[in-house]
C-alpha cells in the first residue's frame, strides 16, 4: 500500500461515513461530494485518467450540485432533532464487519494477488470514443434507453397530480 493510496482511501471512507451520519442534510451532501472527489483521486492514482476526470465532471460537478439544489428547494435544510442512527445500527455494523472480513480473506487468499499488474496501456479519449462507437455501441444505445426511462419516471413520480387525489 502506497502513501498516496492510503491518504485517498482514508479521506474517501471518512467522507462517506460523514455523509451517512451527519444530521444536517446540506453537510451530508457536501461530505458526499468529498467522497466523490476522493474516488476521482483514486481513479487518477490508478492512471485511469478518463474515468477520473469523468468522475470529477459528472459527480463532483453535476450530480453534487443537483443534490444540493434539490435539498435546498425541497426542505429548507432544517436539521432533525433525533439521532439519525437506526435503532439496529449494531446489527448493521456486525453484518458489515463479517462481510468485510470475508471479502478481505477471499482477496488475500486469491491467486490473483500474486499476478503481476497488467502493462500500462495508454488509453486516449479518441480510443475510448472509437470503442464506444464500435464494440460497445450496443451498450451505449441501451444506456440511452435507460436514461430515457429514468427521465420519464422522474417526471412522472415528481409531478404533482392535480385535483383528482382522494
Amino acid at each position, binding site marked *: 500500500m502506497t502513501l498516496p493510496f492510503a491518504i485517498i482511501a482514508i479521506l474517501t471512507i471518512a467522507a462517506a461515513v460523514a455523509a451517512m451520519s451527519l444530521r444536517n442534510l446540506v453537510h451530508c451532501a457536501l461530505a458526499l461530494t468529498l467522497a466523490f472527489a476522493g474516488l476521482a483521486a483514486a481513479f487518477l492514482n490508478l492512471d485511469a485518467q478518463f474515468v477520473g476526470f469523468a468522475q470529477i465532471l459528472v459527480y463532483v460537478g453535476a450530480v453534487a450540485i443537483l443534490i444540493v439544489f434539490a435539498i435546498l428547494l425541497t426542505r429548507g435544510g432544517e436539521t432533525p432533532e433525533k439521532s439519525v442512527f437506526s435503532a439496529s445500527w449494531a446489527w448493521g455494523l456486525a453484518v458489515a464487519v463479517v462481510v468485510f472480513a*470475508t*471479502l478481505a*480473506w*477471499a*482477496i488475500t*487468499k*486469491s*491467486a*490473483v494477488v500474486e499476478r503481476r499488474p497488467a502493462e500500462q496501456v495508454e488509453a486516449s479519449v479518441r480510443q475510448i470514443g472509437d470503442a464506444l*462507437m*464500435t*464494440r*460497445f*455501441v*450496443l*451498450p451505449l444505445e*441501451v*444506456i440511452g*434507453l*435507460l436514461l*430515457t*426511462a*429514468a427521465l*420519464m*419516471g422522474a417526471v*412522472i*413520480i415528481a409531478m404533482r*397530480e392535480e385535483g*383528482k*387525489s*382522494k
Partner: protein
Amino acid sequence: MNVSYLELLKLAAPETIVVLTALAALVVDLTSTRDLEARFRFIINGMIACAGCVAAIVWMLVMPAHANALEGMFVVDPLTQVVKIALLGLTLFTVLISMDSTFTEHIGEYLALILLAAVGMMFLVSAEDILMIFISLELTSLSLYILAAFNKRDVNSAEAALKYFLFGGMAAAFTLFGLSLLYGLSGATNLGQIAAALEDKGLDPLLIVAMVMIVLGFGFKVAAVPFHLWAPDAYQGAPTPSAAFIASGSKVASFFIFAKVMMIGFTGGETNGVHEIAGSAAWQQFVSGWTPVVAVVAVLSMLLGNLVAIVQSSVKRLIAYSAIAHAGYMLIGVMAHSGEAVASLVYYAVTYGLTTIGAFGVVAVVEARSKDDQLASFAGLSRRAPVVSLCMMIFMLSLAGIPPLAGFFGKFYVFAAALKTGAPNLGLLWLVILAIAMSAVSFYYYLQVLKQIYVADMPAGAEELRVPVLGQVVLGLIAVGVILLGCAPNLLVGVLQASIKAAGL
C-alpha cells in the same frame, strides 16, 4: 474493429420496433388523444402498443436470424428468438389487462415504460456479455420500479416502489460487484471467454465470492428466499398490471439469463457451441461451486413461499408468496443445467408467467369493483361473474399443477430434467421429492381461493359484476392458452428443444 451498423440494426430490428412503438405511444398520447376520455385513450394507445409487439413477433417469425454480433454483446439464435417472442406475448397480455384500469392519467408514459421494460428484457435474453447483461438488467429494473410507483393516489404504491427500488438497488450493487470480480479474475466480459479463462485456475476464493454475489443479484430478480422481502409488498402495493408484469416477464427473462450465466459462464471451457466433455475435472469443480449455493436458495424458497402463502388473506400477497415458491421449483431447473433443463425451465417460466398474468387480470377485475383484493371480496364470484370465475379456476389449478393444465407439465418437465441430470447418483432426487411435497401443500391455498369463489356465499346485496367484453375476451384467451399449452406441451417444448439444438447450448 469494423461494425456494420446496418447489419446490427437488422439483427436488433424487433427491439428497434418495440422502442419506436414506445415513442409512438408517447407522441400519440401527447398530441392527439390527450383530451379524450381515459378509457378511449387507454384503448387507442394500448392498440398501438399491441401492434408494435405483434409487428416485432411477426418480424422474428418471418426473418429468423442466427448471428453473434459484437463478440457476444448481442446473440440472436432460434432459442433467444423463441424466448423473445414469449416475452412479447406476455407484454401484449399485460397491456391488454391494463386497458380497463383507472389508476393513472399518464397513459402514454405507462405504456411506453412497459414497452421499454420489454426491450430491456429482450436485450437481456440476447446478451452473452456481462456488461450487456448488467445494463439491460438495469433498464428492465428501472422501468419496473417506475411502473410499481405509477398509482400516485395510493400511498401503498409508493411504498411498494420504494421497497422494490431500495432492495433492487442493493441487489444491483452486489451483482455489479460480483461481475467486476469475475472480470478481474478472467480478464474478459464474454461469458464463453470467462469460462475458458477460468477453466484451469481451480476454485479461487474470490471466484466463490463472485458467484455468491451474482446468485444474490439474480435471486433478488426472481424473488427467491432470502432475497424475497420486497415481493409481497411490491405485488400488493403496485398497480395490478404492473405487478403482473413484474411477476411474469421479468421472471422469464431473469431465469433465462440466470441459467445462461450459470451454464456458460461457470462451466469449464464451453465456448460458443463447442461442448466440453461433461466429466472433466474442472467442470465438476465449478458445478460443485455453484450448485450448493443455488440448492440452499431453492429449498428455502419452496419451504417459506408455500408455508407463508397459507396464512395470507390478500390474494395478491398469496400470489406473491406462491411466486416465491415457484421460483424455488424453477431453480431446480437451473441446477439441472442441461440443454433439456433449459427447455423445461423456459417452458415452466413462460407458462407460469402467462398463468400469473391471467390471475392478476382476474384480481384487477375484482379489485376495480370491490376496492380491495382480500379473499373475502372473492366470495361468491362464480355467481356474479361466471366467465371470469371459470378463468380463475383454470389459472389456480394450473398454478397448483393439476393435469392437463400447463402448470402440471411445467413441473413435470423440470423435475424430469433434474432427475435425468443427476441420474447416476440421483443427486437432485431429494430436491425433487421436497418440491413435490411442497406442491401438495400449495393445493391448500390455491383451493382456498377457489372455495371462496365457488362455495362461499355471496355477500348480501352484491349484484352481478359488469366486466367489459374486452377484459373477458383477454382472460378467456389466456385461459385457452394455458389449457392448450397443457394439452399439447409439444407446441412449445418441441420448438424449444429444436432451437436449443440449433443454438448449441
